[in-house]
């Protein structure tokens, strides 16, 4: 029982990280119709930007979060304007391949600047809270923060999508690109906002990963598969689906360790993705795939 509760906590933490990545992947697919392969490396670069910021000013680990989010929002818009924008009039598959190239460029850049060794925001061990009223469940404060901040960001994304004009326009464009054009919705502004949100949330995912474990140039790339699995499970192009998908994949991956070796965690995500593509390719929330 205790073990299950403990895994539930780990699952929620991983689910939060995956949801942060999957919302961006899903939105970008909905608006621009391509799978953004550099999203994992957006997470990595975001995590390292946060590291650079706190190292430069000698701040605590959590200061990495706002710095990384702001930095990656700017970088994401910059990459879109510089590279992706020029390829938009071609086929989406060209964007997909170029995003794969972008992933390699960003990863090499991180290795070039910060090296390929593990790094951490803070050294030392954080002592978990022992919650006796929950059967002695051990909860690391950082884990609690990751889940809470993710929930806050999810609420913020929800308010943006459901209450603001630009947020509604984003859903409209994802629904029906031609009609959005006919209605006079300014596509470029919506696309820019998509990258701001996608980049900032990817950075949040990266910082969460870095705080939970460590920073490494491959951290984002290896997380990309479960992020895609989450986006597909939820129905690609549907940000709300991505949140549900992230939680389901995160919990499944952690819970699977009850039955099989922990090294099969990515395989669990992959299996769910393949199963979903066979059984219900449009995902839980009926996406645009």
């Amino acid at each position, binding site marked *: 029982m205790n073990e299950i509760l403990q895994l539930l906590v780990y699952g929620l933490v991983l689910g939060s990280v995956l949801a942060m990545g999957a919302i961006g992947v899903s939105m970008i697919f909905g608006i621009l119709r391509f799978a953004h392969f550099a999203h994992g490396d957006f997470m990595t670069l975001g995590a390292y930007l946060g590291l650079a910021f706190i190292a430069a000013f000698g701040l605590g680990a959590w200061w990495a979060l706002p710095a990384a989010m702001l930095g990656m929002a700017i970088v994401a818009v910059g990459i879109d304007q510089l590279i992706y924008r020029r390829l938009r009039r071609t086929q989406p598959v060209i964007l997909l391949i170029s995003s794969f190239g972008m992933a390699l460029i960003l990863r090499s850049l991180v290795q070039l600047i910060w090296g390929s060794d593990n790094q951490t925001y803070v050294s030392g061990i954080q002592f978990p809270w022992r919650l006796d009223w929950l059967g002695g469940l051990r909860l690391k404060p950082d884990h609690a923060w990751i889940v809470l901040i993710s929930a806050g960001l999810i609420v913020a994304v929800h308010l943006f999508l459901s209450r603001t*004009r630009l947020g509604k326009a984003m859903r409209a464009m*994802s*629904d029906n690109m031609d009609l959005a054009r006919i209605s*006079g919705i300014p596509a470029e502004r919506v696309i820019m906002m998509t990258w701001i949100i996608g980049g900032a949330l990817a950075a949040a995912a990266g910082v969460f990963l870095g705080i939970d474990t460590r920073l490494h140039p491959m951290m984002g790339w290896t997380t990309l598969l479960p992020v895609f699995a989450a986006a597909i499970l939820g129905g690609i192009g549907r940000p709300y689906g991505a949140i549900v998908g992230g939680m389901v994949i995160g919990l499944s991956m952690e819970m699977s360790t009850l039955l099989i070796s922990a090294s099969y965690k990515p395989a669990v995500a992959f299996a769910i993705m393949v199963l979903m593509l066979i059984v219900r390719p449009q995902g839980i929330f009926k996406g645009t795939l």
Partner: protein
Amino acid sequence: MSTLLEARDLYGGYGGNDILKGVSLRVEADEVVVIVGPNGAGKSTAMKAIFGLLRIRQGQVLYRGEDITNARPEQMVRRGVAYVPQEHNIFPSLSVQENLEMGAYLMKGDLKPRLERIYQLFPRLAERKRQPTGQMSGGERQMVAMGRALMIDPRLLMLDEPTAGLSPKLIDETFVQIQKINAAGIGVLMVEQNAKQALAIASRGYVLATGANRHEDSGAALLADPHVAEMFLGG
């Protein structure tokens, strides 16, 4: 009355192939103008070309005397021209109200009076403001589609087959709505398969065939023309 829209001898299409081979038409400010013709005549293509969704290779489009050939859709909306495509004319995951709001995306100021006007015209929509439009019936979707276009308070409303797929009763209702819209001072240019009913409410009509003008006359005259009736109205 002043001329709202004039298309002069339009040529254009997809890729290198012209679908339009000399289409000319005109809409006066208070008119309902109907385009009829057989499948593949280029009716929808002409609408798309005028609204800037398709490149016009040769010819001219004038809106209130101003040359707007190949203007982008956004510029058409800003000038007060709204277009309702035949298919995929709603945002299915958005609610009724959100669909309407998207129609007025470029409009500044309070949307409430605009929304109220649409809900008065389509009371059925007022009852379902929060409902996602993807789950609604064909007739209700068509109301949402027209409502979205009317949100900009257009001078000219372009409708591509507004009655396609509707039941006879809903078709009648739609034509009544179009007359109401026109009576409010909005010029209407529409493509219609139900040619008899459409011509009955039309000020003027154009018969297109193979991408070019074939006949032009008042709605009543076209209806009465035995030649036109035989060719395009199914006897």
